[in-house]
């Protein structure tokens, strides 16, 4: 259990947050300038804030009220930076073992991250993705009580990013270390996170389980309308014609690609702007995925748009439609409708291996 309380006045903005993080990955999400990295640095001991309270399990790492401030090396917090920051004068093995008390875990961690063949190499010869994995392994081998990942994928291109994500999932599932993950990429939040802390202008705008916050219409102003969307879970039923049929609580769904073994659980993300609402089951439509649903609530925005919250089985869906359509259709809470999901809305990068 990690408890964070921080306040700091900068020239042009003020940070004031209180955050509690449990096991799994706690995502700190927000636009740049929201204070994400300041929080990460203060927890790691790299930046001293005016008010600092950091309690990790039984240990108090910082408490300005008691004048406690542990130096970074005394905190036992692994830190993965945006750049790998590998020591250029040491081999990969030397880097991995730099913070390790003993090398008993080297084989296991190196295997987990597929870096065993690189052990004798120098960092300068590594690709960006390889260096990122070595940096992860090095932080893990220091046996940290908490791992901070400060935008670890931000410096990588889309392909490298896709290469690293499965390793982060493996760490989440097998390393047994709670993680604080700083990002401004919502796909990383949806794919990896257990808890989501939404930050805006140095404050916590919203916090909760990832799937609850993402499908919460009140979080939309913070996420941005283009980022709003629900997260569903489904079970893989079968693979046909390069498509995969999944069972979600509201009915069957078809997604492109043949990801996941039959019977395994998957995470799906359905963006609000990719959901159309119909009062009757549509005929002759090219969309494959139509789920019966009930209108839960309507949220009119300041602009021409409106959000419709739908209940489909036990899942919540968000649909972004125009206020004009809303009025013409005369939608009201309790109405039985159909949510039409455009096939593209469940593309492969938004289909995630399950975690619960």
């Amino acid at each position: 259990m990690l408890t964070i309380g921080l306040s700091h006045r900068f020239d042009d903005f003020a940070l004031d947050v209180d955050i509690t993080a449990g096991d799994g990955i706690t995502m700190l999400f927000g636009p740049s300038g929201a204070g994400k990295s300041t929080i990460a640095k203060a927890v790691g001991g790299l930046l001293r804030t005016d008010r600092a309270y950091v309690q990790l399990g039984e240990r108090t790492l910082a408490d300005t009220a008691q004048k406690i401030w542990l130096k970074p090396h005394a905190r036992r917090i692994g830190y993965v930076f945006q750049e790998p920051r590998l020591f250029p004068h040491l081999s990969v093995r030397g880097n991995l073992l730099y913070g390790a008390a003993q090398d008993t875990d080297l084989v296991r961690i190196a295997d987990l991250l597929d870096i065993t063949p690189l052990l004798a190499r120098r960092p300068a010869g590594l690709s960006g993705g390889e260096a990122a994995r070595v940096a992860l392994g090095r932080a893990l081998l220091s046996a940290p009580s908490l791992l901070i990942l400060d935008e670890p994928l931000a410096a990588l291109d889309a392909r490298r990013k896709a290469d690293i994500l499965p390793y982060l999932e493996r760490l989440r599932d097998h390393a047994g270390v709670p993680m604080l993950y700083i990002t401004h990429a919502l796909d990383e939040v949806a794919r990896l996170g257990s808890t989501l802390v939404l930050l805006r202008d140095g404050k916590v705008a919203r916090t909760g389980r990832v799937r609850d916050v993402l499908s919460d219409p009140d979080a939309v102003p913070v996420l941005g309308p283009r980022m709003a969307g629900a997260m569903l879970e489904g079970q893989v039923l079968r693979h046909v014609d390069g498509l995969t049929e999944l069972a979600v609580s509201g009915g069957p769904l078809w997604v492109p690609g043949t990801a996941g073994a039959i019977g395994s659980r998957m995470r799906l993300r359905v963006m609000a702007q990719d959901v159309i609402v119909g009062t009757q089951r549509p005929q002759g439509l090219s969309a494959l995925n139509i789920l019966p649903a009930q209108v839960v609530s309507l949220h009119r925005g300041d602009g021409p748009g409106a959000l419709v919250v739908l209940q489909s089985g036990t899942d919540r869906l968000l649909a972004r439609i125009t206020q004009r359509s809303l009025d013409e259709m005369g939608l009201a809470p309790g109405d039985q409708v159909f949510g039409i999901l455009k096939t593209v809305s469940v593309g492969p990068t938004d289909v995630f291996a399950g975690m619960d």
Partner: protein
Amino acid sequence: MIALPPEGWDALWLSLRVAGLSTLLSLPVALGVALLLARGRFVGRGILNGLVHLPLVLPPVVTGYLLLIAFGRTAPIGIFLEDTFGLVLAFRWTGAVLAAAVMSFPLTVRAIWLALEAVEPGLEEAAATLGASPVRVFVTVTLPLIAPGVLAGAVIGFAKAMGEFGATITFVSNIPGETQTVPSAIYSFLQVPGGEAAVWGLVALAVGVALGALLLAEMLSRRVAARIAGRA
């Protein structure tokens, strides 16, 4: 083999001893001062910076005179050193070591300082998050990365010490066998008619040492860059 008169050999041997000792003694201090200047944020940093660089711009004869005022046998520090350690500096070869150390100090500090500036601070931060204390960070990350820069500073300092003349002759005079270094010997030979023949050997030696040191320092500096970029 270079033909040298006996005084020439004495001068060369003394110069090597003086320059070697001055380099050895000033290197740890130069490392500490370079660290303070490159990383320290303290009141008086500008004054320290000025003091270190002063011998570079002062006329050497002034530096030598100031050393004489401070370390002469009647000066407070001179008396203290003689009474406590039995160490006499003025007009002794030991004083030549001090003069050489003071005059070469700014060059050594600058070389180390440059190497320190080239080290990515993020690496030291990363080492700290891996549990390394500040001392361990310095020994295992900073020092290996700047090692070629430290060596380059030592080499350039050694060369400067070999060639030091103005401060040395003012502080410790030009006594054959005691304080007559290679530059002082060249000066002496040039004062007597027909002494030019003996000078050539010493001039060749001085040029050789200076050029060799510059090339070596340049090569070592390149190695710092290569090391920090992870190519060596």
